[in-house]
């Protein structure tokens, strides 16, 4: 086990920089998720930790040792790939024991360590099969097993669940979390799925365009997003953003046509400043008639447990996730209200939290 320290790491292909100085600390035994839209550099960063991509600038340490120029095989890491990368011509047991065989361990030791890992993952009955005879979820577990068997300092996961169907993904999510709880190996996990990040991580690193937007515990990111990008990326459905101006007494903001949105605390921006007001769809509730924000409904999606309403307020799009069953139709005006403390304010120009 070991910590991973990434300091001011850069990656450039010629003049084109894909990672522009990233610093992330992964404490010993932590489960850190790198999340971001595709092309944000999260996979490249992971591959740099693995040693599959060269590091253009900065340093990466594993367990205190700088590993910039260390061969992948000498970094004492294990990686699980999106497509599992199982060797098709080897049995499950051979796949899992592959690294031990290369490390010249005895046959007995390989067999016992493979058997241990297989037991943890429920693969004992499949050891003599070939990868193509297994389902997607089982293959995923074999890939996990191959990593566990080595007992490495660090686990690296590159979107390991994105090839599974939705139901299996939820199940594997829980299994991965459970395995981590048991073996407590430092883990860096890459995904584009914010739900995976929220549910599995001790700490989330949100990336965009080669930089880190915010690092924090899942709920910290949800409650206090550092900017509009993190605010919209974390949480589903996405946060609503309304362009507003700060009122004279700074206790509320208002849209262009004067729809007032109260603030939980006094705004730090000067009166009249243009700001972005953010509110999560699940923080909107139905108001008593005549009060609240009048929303003209454009779309209604009942899911049974809740109703997702999309609408327009003062020319701006807004959506709400309501617990009630609503008997309304598009074109109706729905009055919504909110708890002032649940609102977020962002700078209109930079998107930074105020």
């Amino acid at each position: 086990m070991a910590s991973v320290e990434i300091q001011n790491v850069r990656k450039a292909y010629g003049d084109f920089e894909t990672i522009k100085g990233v610093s992330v600390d992964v404490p010993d035994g932590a489960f850190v998720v790198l999340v971001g839209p595709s092309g944000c550099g999260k996979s490249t960063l992971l591959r740099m930790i693995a040693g599959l991509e060269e590091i253009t600038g900065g340093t990466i340490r594993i367990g205190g040792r700088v590993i910039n120029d260390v061969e992948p095989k000498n970094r004492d890491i294990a990686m699980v790939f999106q497509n599992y990368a199982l060797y098709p011509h080897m049995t499950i047991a051979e796949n899992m024991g592959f690294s031990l065989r290369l490390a010249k361990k005895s046959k007995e030791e390989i067999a016992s360590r493979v058997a241990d890992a297989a037991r943890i993952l429920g693969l004992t009955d499949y050891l003599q099969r070939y990868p193509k005879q297994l389902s997607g979820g089982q293959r995923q577990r074999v890939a996990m097993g191959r990593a566990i068997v080595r007992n490495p300092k660090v686990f690296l996961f590159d979107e390991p669940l994105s090839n599974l169907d939705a139901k299996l993904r939820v199940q594997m999510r829980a299994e991965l979390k459970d395995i981590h709880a048991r073996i407590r190996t430092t883990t860096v996990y890459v995904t584009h799925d914010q739900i995976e990040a929220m549910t599995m991580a001790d700490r989330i690193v949100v990336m965009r365009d080669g930089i880190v937007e915010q690092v924090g515990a899942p709920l910290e990111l949800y409650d206090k997003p550092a900017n509009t990008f993190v605010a919209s990326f974390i949480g589903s459905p996405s946060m609503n953003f309304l362009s507003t101006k700060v009122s004279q007494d700074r206790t509320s903001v208002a849209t262009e046509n004067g729809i007032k949105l109260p603030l939980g605390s006094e705004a730090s921006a000067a009166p009249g400043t243009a700001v972005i007001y953010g509110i999560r769809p699940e923080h909107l509730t139905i108001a008593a008639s005549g009060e609240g924000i009048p929303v003209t409904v454009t779309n209604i999606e009942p899911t049974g447990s809740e109703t997702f309403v999309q609408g327009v307020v003062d020319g701006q799009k807004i959506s709400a996730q309501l617990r009630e069953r609503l008997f309304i139709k598009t074109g109706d005006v729905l009055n919504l209200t909110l708890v002032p403390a649940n609102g977020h304010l962002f700078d209109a120009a930079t998107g930074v939290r105020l």
Partner: protein
Amino acid sequence: MTAEIATIHIEPTADELAEGRRLRRRKRLTNLAIDVFLVIVSLLMLLPLVFLVANAFKTPAEMLAWPPTIIPRDPTIANFSAVLGETPLIRWIGNSLAFAVLSTIAIVATSAIAGYVFGKFRFGTMNVLFALFLATAIVPFEVYMIPLYFQAKSLGILNSVWGLLLGYLVMSFGIFLIRQNVIHSIPDELLEAARIDGAGEFWIFLHIVLPLLRGALGALAVLAFFQAWTAFAWPMIVATTRTSYTIEVGLALFQTGFTVDLGRLSAASATVLVPSILLFVILRRNFVQGVASTGLKE
């Protein structure tokens, strides 16, 4: 409720039954027509071979008889004994076999290595090199056959299997075939996983890449073998002594005199067929199978 559903059974009407019979009959007829067609085509393709083998056992008189017989009335092995006795046919087959086997080994080895390198290590200079390799495929062999002959001559390897091999060590199509296979069926992650697991590059090639290319290499081996086995122009100029001929060159000699000895030519050809057919039967599975499953999520 379920019991009720289970007991509901609607009798098909007479019309429906007739319709079903009619469709089944039509399907049977279609299948029959396809079978008949395929049988005719395969007969047409087999017939020359059958006559070749039959002729080998015929007397000169029967060979010219009309209508031709498929099973000789008066089978003789005189043609075979004449061919085997008067010409070093076995020697020629041996030469061809040695030439074809060595050429196959060389082509499979060079194609596997070059194809893998071109497929997986794709940076600037490699692409230029690969383009050059492909370019050599465009140049007809006959163009550089004579310069190559002088090379063989100065190396002092004329009239030997090494001389024959000179033009048949590398096959640009083979490199191309393996490269495409590597790109298509060996994902980068497989190699990366092996590298992280501690495997060296040569180990990866031997234990991961080669087993996954088995199908493609098998197909290539068959192609390479027959390319050498049926080679004519190059052996013709390199092998000039009677004992160094390959079977192709040797067979051609039956026709170069003033007459064509059909009986002996047939007997020689029939003998030559044996190794070809054997090899094809052995490698047929590889040949047809092509690409091995990649074991990844499709």
